């Protein structure tokens, strides 16, 4: 019993020692090396706060993993999971084309994941297939087929392992899986689907894919179908009736001609597989600048086909998700508290230590600091050599020089001036527009060169009751943008169709659309020389970011459409006009409610995005 007691006692003592050491070490550091300790803790708190803030604003979660197939090299994979969608998530498995790599797939994967789908990419084996592909191109079909099969074996192992991995994940909705392949990836996926009918996905999307040799046998069957009127036995191509195929192909594809895609579509169709072929007019194999737009559309197609037509109704965009993220200052509060708390803590510790010193040492306040020639921090007491009063030393303050007194007066005066100027620039813009706030703006907030535009806008009664900030933003940004762009505009055209924020009474809303649109669109058009080229870029990027849908519950105002990144046809046209105006292209809604822009000589229909809905 006594042994037990002593053991418990010693354990208690150890615990006590440990706990006291835990407290003592930081306190000792606090007293011994004050500047470094304070600075290190402050930096660490700031850094950790920033890390947590950034993680909170990140709309995606990325999971890097490897799959290890038997008899083949491991394959690096990544899954991009949107945080704004409810799990389990529908999954899109994407394979890049020949010569591509996983590190280059990020934008395509994210573009699809933005739609609320988990996007998975894989660094698959493509070397052998490359040789096979080249051989095929040279017309040596047999050899190419053999080598392609060798590469295909490695790929099949990797892809099977990936599918097995996905089956085990809790975030995967295993009934809603789509495969998307581009070029060589499309070839591999269709080939795999033909060989493994039991693993076929709900949706197979082939982007710029060609004919594959495995389909030849089915082509024979389909020719028999044409003769006999029905298949003698069900084709393995449609073993899972739920599987559908979407073929997206460029009109001028120089690698796999459009005829190949049409042939594949015909073959699949005759084998009972639901196929849709979408031709991208004027595009080539690489899809050029429309690549991300095409992936946006593929993401929309995957979402609606996997989750139903009304899935777009509950679509939640990145911007609306990020708008709810907490601000940075909240995460920096611990650091600010530490900075505010530090002088008090330091004084407390120094006094505590001084009171514990033997009588002879007690006359040396904060001895480690004062005796040490270490530089003194802003929070430390001044040393006796400074000539200042020190409570412990019982000294008296040295007399002030005349310029010291002046500096002491100057500091609060300058601080007051800075505060007043800051308040003038920050407070009135947040107030609603009235004669008084307009007067303040005229006098202090609007530059002389912008006064004409300011008066032009304020003459419109639509501004009454709206925040002054919105009006100032339109004036300032429109003027600033006008200085930057490489084309000129006449004053009436500029004021009516660039400066004015009124587009469509239904879509105008609170008119606060210029800044977000300008920040997104201007960097893309800043090198363009004319409005035509700028308008084309605007149309493309707008479609990359905004989905065109039908139904109720969609955003109607321009600012809201941009934030939610989904709109109906009319809303899309309104936001298109707003985007054009934000970058200095004079534009308006035409008679058919379609966007038009001013070329410098005439009004012209604005360029249309490659794919509408």
């Amino acid at each position: 019993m006594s042994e037990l007691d002593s053991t418990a006692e010693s354990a208690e003592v150890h615990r006590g020692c440990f706990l006291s050491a835990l407290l003592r070490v930081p306190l000792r550091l606090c007293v011994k090396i004050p500047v470094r300790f304070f600075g290190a803790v402050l930096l660490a708190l700031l850094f950790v706060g920033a890390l947590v803030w950034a993680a909170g604003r990140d709309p995606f979660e990325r999971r890097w993993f490897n799959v290890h197939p038997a008899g083949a090299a491991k394959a690096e994979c990544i899954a991009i999971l949107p945080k704004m969608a409810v799990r389990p998530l529908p999954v899109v498995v994407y394979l890049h084309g020949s010569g591509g790599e996983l590190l280059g797939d990020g934008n395509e994967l994210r573009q699809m994941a933005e739609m609320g789908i988990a996007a998975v990419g894989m660094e698959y084996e493509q070397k052998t297939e490359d040789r096979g592909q080249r051989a095929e191109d040279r017309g040596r079909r047999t050899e190419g087929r053999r080598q392609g099969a060798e590469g295909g074996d490695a790929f099949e192992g990797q892809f099977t392992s990936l599918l097995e991995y996905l089956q085990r994940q809790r975030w995967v909705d295993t009934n809603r899986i789509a495969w998307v392949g581009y070029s060589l990836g499309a070839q591999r996926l269709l080939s795999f689907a033909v060989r493994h009918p039991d693993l076929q996905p709900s949706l197979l999307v082939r982007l710029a894919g060609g004919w594959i040799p495995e389909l030849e046998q089915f082509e024979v069957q389909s020719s028999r179908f044409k003769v006999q009127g029905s298949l003698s036995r069900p084709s393995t191509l449609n073993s899972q009736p739920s599987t559908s195929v979407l073929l997206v192909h460029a009109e001028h594809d120089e690698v796999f001609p459009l005829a190949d895609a049409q042939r594949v579509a015909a073959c699949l169709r005759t084998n009972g597989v639901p196929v849709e072929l979408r031709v991208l007019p004027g595009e080539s194999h690489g899809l050029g600048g429309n690549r991300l737009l095409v992936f946006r559309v593929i993401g929309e197609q995957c979402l609606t086909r996997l989750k139903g037509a009304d899935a777009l109704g509950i679509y939640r965009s990145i911007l609306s998700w990020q708008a709810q993220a907490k601000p940075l200052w909240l995460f920096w509060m611990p650091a600010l508290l530490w900075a505010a708390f530090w002088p008090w803590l330091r004084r407390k510790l120094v006094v505590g230590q001084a009171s514990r010193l033997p009588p002879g040492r007690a006359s040396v306040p904060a001895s480690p600091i004062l005796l040490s020639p270490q530089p003194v921090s802003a929070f430390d007491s001044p040393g006796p050599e400074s000539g200042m009063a020190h409570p412990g030393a019982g000294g008296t303050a040295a007399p002030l020089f005349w310029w010291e007194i002046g500096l002491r007066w100057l500091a609060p005066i300058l601080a007051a001036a800075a505060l007043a100027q800051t308040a003038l620039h920050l407070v009135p813009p947040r107030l609603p527009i009235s004669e008084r706030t307009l007067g303040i703006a005229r006098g202090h907030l609007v530059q002389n060169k912008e006064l004409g535009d300011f008066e032009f806008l304020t003459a419109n009664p639509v501004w009454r009751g709206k925040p002054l900030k919105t009006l100032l933003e339109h004036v300032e940004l429109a003027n600033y943008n006008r200085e930057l762009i490489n084309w000129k505009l006449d004053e009436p055209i500029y004021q009516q169709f660039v400066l004015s924020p009124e587009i469509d009474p239904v879509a105008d809303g609170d008119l606060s659309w210029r800044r977000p649109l300008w920040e997104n669109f201007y960097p893309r058009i800043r090198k363009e020389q004319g409005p035509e080229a700028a308008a084309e870029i605007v149309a493309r990027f707008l479609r990359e970011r905004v989905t065109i849908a039908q139904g109720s519950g969609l955003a109607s105002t321009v600012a809201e459409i941009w934030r939610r990144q989904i709109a109906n046809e009319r809303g899309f046209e309104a936001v298109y006009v707003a985007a054009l105006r934000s970058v200095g292209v004079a534009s308006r809604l035409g008679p058919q409610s379609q966007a038009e822009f001013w070329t410098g000589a005439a009004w012209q229909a604005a360029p249309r995005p490659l794919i509408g809905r």
Partner: protein
Amino acid sequence: MPVGHSWKTLIGWACDVSRGHLRVLWRVLTSHSTKKVFGFAAVVPVLALCLFVDSALIRWSGFAAEVLLEVDAALLDGGTQWMLLACCGVCLATLVWVRRRGGERVGNLESDFRNRLQAGGEDGFELSIRESDLIWHEPGTWLLGLAGLAALRYAMNYDRAARSTQALALLGLAALGQAAAVAVSWEPHRVVKARNLESKNTNKIEVGGNKEAPEEVQKSETEGGVERRDDGTTAVQERWTRARERGPDIRGAVAGTLVVLLACVAVFCREGMPEFHYRSRARLTGLWDNPNVFGALMAMGTVLAIAMVWPSEADGEDRPNVSGGSRCLNLIAHSVFHSPRSAMKRAFWLAAAVVLATGLLRSYSRGAWFGAAVGLAYLGWQLQHHPGKRELRILFPRLKLNCLVCAAALAVVASWSLRHAGGPVAQRAASVANSNDFSWRNRVASWEGALQMMTERPFFGLGWNRPQWVYVQFYGSSSVPDRGALQLNDYLILGTALGLPVLFCFASYVGLSLCPRAKAKPLRTTQERMRQQSGDGRQKTEPPAPPALDFGHWTLDSAAVCRAGAVVLLVGFWFDGGLFKLATGATFWILLELGRADTDERA
């Protein structure tokens, strides 16, 4: 006279003459001035190579350009790169070890002497435990940790890492810095000096420049700014003697050479590359391909030049005895102009500072401007403790808050006022508060992306040469079309490529190298403690003794100047990068290590 005898005489005479000549030659060779000349001769080509090898000057020249291309190809070849990396790693580890071992050798002498003194009884004095005895207070430890993790990550994804020279640059330039520090601190006579001191049983300990003495000896009389010791010598005279004993001031030579070389660039390279403009004004790029690199180097040179205008440790003998009205201004004026011996020198450095500052302004690099401001603030912090600037030491703490408030208020007022007015320089400076400026917005967006990358891969990072790609593809915001800004922040590159442990190692290394460590504190002897108490045992109210125990510590010496230069580049690396570039990276490591070498001495 026999012929043989005459020959012998002649040979003997010749030998005498030659022996005398040799002796003279030896004296000349080992003289202070010769050492200085050789020191400079070694420093100039090394620094010139570091600054200009990767510059446009070399790349556009014929033969040198071809050689440089070959070197580039060899560095980027995976087959040779790993060998070079291994060599750099071994060099770095060896140099750190050599430096550490040198410190231990001296430390052993010190501890022996200390033990003997303590065994001696009353006359001895206590010494608190040196923090530098703890291995984690040694910057070299963190540097080795950084290098080890960097090499490990290199090995883990070798195929991709070998496509860039970042890993090689990090290790190679760090080794270069260590080599510079070893070259500077390699002074065997210090150990001998410590032994001599020990045998003389003086009441000083001088170990590798570290001097501690009991307070009785350290007590000094102050006569209007000049502190006189009991033995009649002034502190500044003693320091001057010590400075002469140390041999050539390599740190000063490095700083001076950098200033001269950069000033030459600023004078002779007036035209910038056509593709860099700010509001239709060309931004100077000097010999480099980027105005930010040029700006960072100009900022560093400006700070170094300004620092060299101030009286250094060696100028201590000229220190004035000033008193009266505006003593601070008098002191500054005297320091700069009234010393005839160094007036020309200071005028030269002042002129160089003006030239470099002009180049800095014309680079329109805001990161470099900010770096220069931080470097000057660091210099001011160092200057605050200058022994001759007693007035500054009085005024700085008293006016610190007022100065800070004035500076902040002026910055706010200027940022509001200069948004739409002022010249291009003022507008460029005020553009950091302009929400329409995409330059800083892209940077902030990339910082956010980098933090997200670190959150997802905190321990091992993404690997060398991957963060840029991964950021562009997986983390960059869709609203930012130009996603190259991540490469402009070297710290975030380190954190994302190698993980937070490496970033922590780097921060610890830099922090320990820049911040002076806690010093050995001579505690009071028992006798003195007793003297401080009155008869009834109560505490006396006499003020404590002056704290400046080691005057050398308070000096704006060449090491502090080097550290200020390194601080400028450290700030520049946050905004514009350069840690992996030869010109800025090599300069940074050399300056930081030279600055740290002095910190070691003083610890």
